[in-house]
């Protein structure tokens, strides 16, 4: 395999980027931190931390409300980030970029505002076995509210969707298809364009849960053809509590507001209210302004490195991670799809993942252990959970080697 080589010009830029992340420059339990939990939440570069702090120090006021200078600055910073997001995911219009608290709120918004008025007994919502709980439970709620049925596309033993079954499950009763772009537990990249084409052939809209894809893959919502795309800032080196719902403008126009409050109105009287235009119709109340500013800075940061460089670097590093893990005696890799990004789940001998997590943490290595908010995936494999190493652009070959050495120690303790 080709290691990500430091003498490759791409790798040089990315190797250097590790020093941009202050949290990675510390020791944990006497060892330099190896952070392999970016799929849960990625660390933030200085550029993001500083952008948020600068905004708080100099520019903070409420947005869209004041005539004074700070309110203008805050509004410019907030709306400027929206423009960056639009460009980053190649949306046709800034009106299609709804700022939310995260992927979870984005999916709930679609479930309640788009689907709920359209659903009744006999209707179906089609998801997949690979989904994170945040792409399961919002649909279960709206099914309970409307009598609609949640239908699940099966997966196979390597963690790939059964596309034949998906085609069979599509029918005119299906009101929406909602599928993750990249599985958080297994790393599988789903064939989104194929899924969208199949669904659109029956005029069924498609929501893509992009929480795990945005920092690892180039995202072009027009090329993907999806109708909704949901993602979070904190998985892509931005702050927590901020996310995006991209929605096709014609669909967003049809949808009633999700929440009522300030900023989402044009005119309010006790006889009734005229709702604001897109995207503000869906942004009730004072938003997470500093968080959105941080998300804009995270996009600038990603683009300064170049998403295509990140894809190549992480692809090679994931290959190295998978190979090195596979060479560990007693390892069982969970999730071995042909097309994957950033994540490798595994089990070691009969050591419980939680014990592995403690033993690795003791050596300064942070991984995620447990069900990864994807309990149906764990049920499929008949396991209570996995250990999961997830990569980001700041990881390198040394991190992988430290992980493998750490697993050796776990084996010694449990020998």
């Amino acid at each position, binding site marked *: 395999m080709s290691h990500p080589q430091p003498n490759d010009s791409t790798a040089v830029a990315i190797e250097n980027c590790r020093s941009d992340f202050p949290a990675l420059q510390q020791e944990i*339990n*006497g060892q330099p931190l190896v952070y392999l939990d970016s799929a849960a939440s990625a660390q933030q570069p200085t550029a993001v931390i500083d952008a948020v702090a600068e905004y708080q120090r100099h520019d903070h006021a409420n947005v869209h409300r004041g005539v004074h200078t700070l309110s203008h600055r805050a509004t410019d910073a907030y709306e400027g980030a929206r423009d960056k997001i639009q460009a980053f995911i190649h949306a046709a219009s800034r009106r299609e970029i709804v700022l939310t608290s995260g992927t979870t709120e984005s999916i709930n918004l679609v479930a309640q505002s788009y689907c709920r008025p359209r659903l009744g007994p006999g209707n179906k919502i089609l998801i997949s076995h690979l989904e994170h709980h945040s792409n399961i439970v919002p649909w279960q709620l709206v099914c309970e509210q409307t009598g609609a049925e949640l239908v699940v596309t099966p997966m196979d033993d390597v963690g790939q969707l059964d596309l034949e079954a998906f085609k069979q499950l599509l029918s005119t009763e299906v009101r929406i298809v909602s599928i993750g772009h990249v599985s958080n537990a297994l790393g599988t990249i789903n064939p989104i364009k194929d899924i969208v084409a199949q669904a659109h052939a029956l005029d069924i809209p498609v929501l893509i849960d992009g929480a795990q894809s945005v920092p690892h893959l180039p995202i072009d919502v027009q090329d993907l053809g999806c109708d909704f795309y949901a993602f979070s800032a904190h998985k892509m080196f931005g702050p927590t509590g901020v996310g995006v719902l991209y929605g096709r403008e014609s669909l967003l126009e049809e949808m009633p507001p999700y929440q009522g409050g300030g900023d989402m109105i044009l005119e309010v009287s006790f006889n009734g209210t005229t709702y604001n235009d897109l995207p503000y119709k869906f942004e009730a109340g004072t938003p997470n302004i500093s968080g959105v500013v941080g998300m804009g800075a995270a996009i600038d940061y990603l683009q300064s490195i170049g998403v295509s460089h990140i894809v190549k670097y992480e692809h090679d590093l994931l290959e190295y991670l998978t190979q090195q893990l596979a060479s560990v005696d007693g390892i069982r890799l969970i999730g071995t799809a042909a097309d994957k990004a950033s994540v490798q789940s595994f089990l070691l001998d009969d*050591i*419980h*993942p*939680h*014990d592995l*997590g*403690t*033993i690795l943490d*003791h*050596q300064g290595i942070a991984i995620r*252990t*447990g*069900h990864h908010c994807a309990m149906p995936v*764990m049920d499929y494999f008949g396991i*209570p*959970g996995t250990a999961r190493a997830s990569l980001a652009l700041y990881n390198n070959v040394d991190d992988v080697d430290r992980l493998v050495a750490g697993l050796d*120690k776990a084996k*010694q*303790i*449990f*020998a």
Partner: protein
Amino acid sequence: MSAVDINSRDDLRELYRELILDHAKSPRHFGKLAGATHTAEGINPLCGDKLRLYLRLDDEDKIDAASFEGSGCAISVAAASVMTDTIIGLNVSVALEYFRAVTRRLTDPGQDHGDNLDLGKIMAFDGVHEFPSRIKCATLAWHALNCAIHNQTKSVSTE
């Protein structure tokens, strides 16, 4: 267990003592209990530990049999195994004294707890207090015991 120098700091070895590893690998009183009079489920949602505890009480409230089933990490399985070993033969009021002593001991180790009780193998879990995220693993079975004795039928969670 092999004699491995895990670290200059011996916290890990303190956590994974031989007794704990032994009970984790070969849990005692594992399985369903015929004629159980009390049962409760313990769930630790953080790591997915899930166990069901069974008790059989006689007419004088003595625990004459106890068992557990389920899956969990080494700490939670060993804790359940040692707990069942400890409580069989005890009156429920004494078993509850153990429950209180153990939970206090793990969460507030600076104090002497349970001096009047023979803690025996339970002291093998003293190393857990150095690992705050694992205290819930060590107390899960004990919370299930408390729940079962008080005949609470719903699951007890460590969250």
